[in-house]
């Protein structure tokens, strides 16, 4: 397989809003910028699909397009060596890419948190964001009956997309209580752009029932999803559907940061006001540094870009914007906090680790995440615990173990591609 060596004075991992803003700012400041992402179109998960873009995404994608001094390489970063300032990436064709950096900006985004319940492994049960991604990449949902269940504003955005693509959104089940969401709505008033967004969404979704304090207890069907059993305050009823889109908020993607030795906390990679991580020359921006939405990602991306390129003053000027967005992020987390009852949806029979088919009962008596991995193989499969890890963090309070290479399954040939002989 081919091996390519590249380098950039500022290397950005991720092409979502934070990565785009970071690359743009760094290039504006005259930096030589190299963006690394797994070959997907610019925009990341949120701006994926190209169609139906709003003004904000149009503006930023155009900025990226027109910026001078930004190169891109389509390869998934699978490993890194902080001391050699080296990233190892793999292309879709299996070739390897070694990327040397002077400054590194991590904009690795977030993934959905999934919580296990009976039947959640059935085909037809998809992540809410996953369903959004599938629809944007060609899934035809015309006439399909979809239930959206879980937590957070993403459910509304997905419902809006589904409605636009002529699916029947049967209902949205939000686990959080109405009172908490109302309080959050009040706080939105201080962020006008978001308020308008929310109002527009709500108006468009007027015909879709939005049930709060409600969740899916069980997904039913033999070889694929046929129906879901809902629970709202003890009232249970069955709804037939073709897809269930489920997700319980977002989890920052911190694996690469962890491998580089950056300090991480439960909420994201630890950064200072200039998005600097604990490792010299490594910055982190956007969802990976703490869940907070697109505006926070853009602000942090810009700060990281300016700061990495040595334009401290420009970076400092964005402090206020960042602070405001952090306030919003905190309110968001509070409003959509996961309720204890959700832990009760898991029985001893429920599969927790999908890669290795480990059921909850097998984790009985395990001291911690490491012991569970050793004794049951939970989290030892291909996804490297990205799915069950988020669930077990909530269910058992287990924190992830030390990150070791590779951060994504990678060809052995890729691992050894950048040897210094």
């Amino acid at each position, binding site marked *: 397989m081919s091996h390519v060596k590249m380098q950039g004075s500022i290397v950005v991992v991720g092409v979502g809003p934070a990565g785009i803003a970071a690359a743009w700012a760094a290039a504006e400041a005259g930096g030589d910028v190299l963006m690394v992402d797994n070959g997907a179109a610019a925009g990341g998960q949120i701006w994926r699909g190209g169609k139906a873009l709003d003004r904000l995404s149009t503006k930023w994608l155009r900025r990226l397009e027109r910026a001078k001094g930004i190169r891109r390489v389509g390869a998934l970063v699978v490993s890194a060596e902080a001391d050699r300032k080296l990233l190892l990436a793999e292309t879709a064709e299996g070739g390897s890419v070694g990327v040397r950096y002077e400054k590194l900006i991590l904009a690795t985004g977030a993934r959905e948190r999934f919580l296990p319940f009976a039947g959640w492994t059935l085909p037809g049960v998809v992540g809410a964001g996953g369903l959004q991604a599938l629809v944007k990449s060609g899934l035809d949902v015309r006439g399909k009956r979809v239930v959206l269940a879980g937590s957070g504003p993403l459910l509304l955005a997905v419902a809006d997309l589904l409605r636009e693509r002529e699916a029947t959104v049967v209902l949205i089940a939000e686990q959080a209580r109405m009172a908490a969401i109302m309080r959050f709505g009040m706080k939105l008033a201080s962020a006008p752009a978001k308020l308008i967004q929310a109002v527009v969404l709500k108006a468009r979704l007027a015909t879709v029932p939005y049930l709060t304090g409600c969740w899916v207890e069980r997904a039913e069907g033999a070889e694929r999803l046929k129906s879901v059993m809902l629970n709202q305050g003890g009232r249970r009823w069955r709804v037939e559907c073709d897809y269930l889109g489920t997700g319980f908020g977002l989890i920052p993607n911190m694996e690469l940061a962890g491998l580089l030795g950056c300090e991480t906390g439960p909420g994201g990679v630890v950064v200072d006001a200039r998005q600097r991580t604990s490792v010299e020359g490594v910055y982190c921006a956007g969802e990976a540094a703490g869940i907070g939405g697109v505006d926070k990602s853009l602000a942090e991306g810009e700060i990281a870009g300016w700061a990495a390129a040595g334009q401290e003053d420009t970076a400092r000027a964005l402090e206020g914007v960042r602070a405001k967005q952090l306030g919003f992020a905190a309110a968001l987390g509070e409003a959509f906090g996961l309720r204890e009852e959700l832990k009760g949806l898991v029985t001893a029979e429920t599969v927790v680790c999908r890669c290795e088919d480990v059921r909850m009962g097998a984790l009985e008596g395990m*001291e911690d995440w490491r012991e569970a991995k050793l*004794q049951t193989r939970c989290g030892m499969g291909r996804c*490297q615990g990205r799915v069950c890890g988020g669930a077990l963090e909530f269910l058992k309070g287990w924190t992830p173990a030390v990150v070791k290479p590779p951060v994504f*399954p990678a*060809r*052995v*040939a890729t*691992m050894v591609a950048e040897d*210094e002989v």
Partner: protein
Amino acid sequence: MNAPDIIVVGAGIVGAACALELARGGARVSVYDRGIVAGGASAAGMGHVCVMDDSEAQFQLTRYSLELWAEMSPEMPAAAEHVYCGTLWVAADEEEMAEARRKAEFYLPRGTPAELLDEKQLAAAEPNLRKGLAGGLLLPADSVLYQPAVAWWMLNEAKKLGATVHVNQPVESIEDDGLHMGDGTVVAAGRVVNAAGAWAARLTRNTPVKPKKGHLMITERAAEFVRHEVIELGYIKSAHSGATEAVAFNVAPRPAGQVLIGSCRQLGVWDAAIDRKILNKMLRRAIEYMPGLAGLRGIRSWTGFRAATEDSLPLIGPCEGYERVWLATGHEGLGITTATGTAKVLAAQMLGRECGIPVAPYLPSRRVAGHG
């Protein structure tokens, strides 16, 4: 509650096997570990159970242990994943083929099955090996198991006989009055066994073990890619050369189809971080022997610390300079293989239980005599 008769420090495969054997011998046993069950070298090994012939004493202990594993195997749960896949020693050239023949001539008269393979037979046995290797030696009675699950099961069996297991209990040192804990307390015991692997030297004096760091990588599932525990015969040279750092081609199948890739040795290194330089060296060596490995996806890598002794034999018996402290450590790369034999050798001395082999070669005091 009265103090236990015996405390075993170390809940790895060796400590667990000793605890079970001692409990079966009627002792009231407690097990203490600074971390979790099988969290040290036992979490890092390949699970290889193999006969070895570096010395007569090593052969005796490994062969005896294999017999004990065979007896224990039917009792073990499915999670132990004990599979008789056999060891395939690979000879790259005629010099290594001569070593294969020497091994066969050592094993056969001693009743250990061994089969010499020529170039063709080797290729048939492991189709993913590169062409042009000289041949090999198949040891069909060797096996692999999943040692964390085995240690877990052994401790559960010991618990059924009244043993207690205390994890996440950092022991500072071991003295004749018991365990001196990190919080300043002393846990009293009739006798104490130091089975703390590479960490043993931190707990007792006169415990000449040093860490030998190793790296491993595991791949995604690749059914039938590797069928045996496969090791290059060059391993003998690399493992025993005086060099402080060595790599060798060594792969093993996991029952679900993943491939474990080893192995390397770094003497005296205590840093648990992945050392990319030696990891890559190890992976390159593996690709040399099995080019197809380059195309498999690696999922994880990790490190561990073997407890190495000067003469490559474990220390099993009374610890010099103590009245009531015993050792069961220093197994280097054979801790999993010889856990069962070690437990017998230890229990023979501590409880007067029967043992199928002489215990003298493994006594810690052998070293003092040697130094004399």
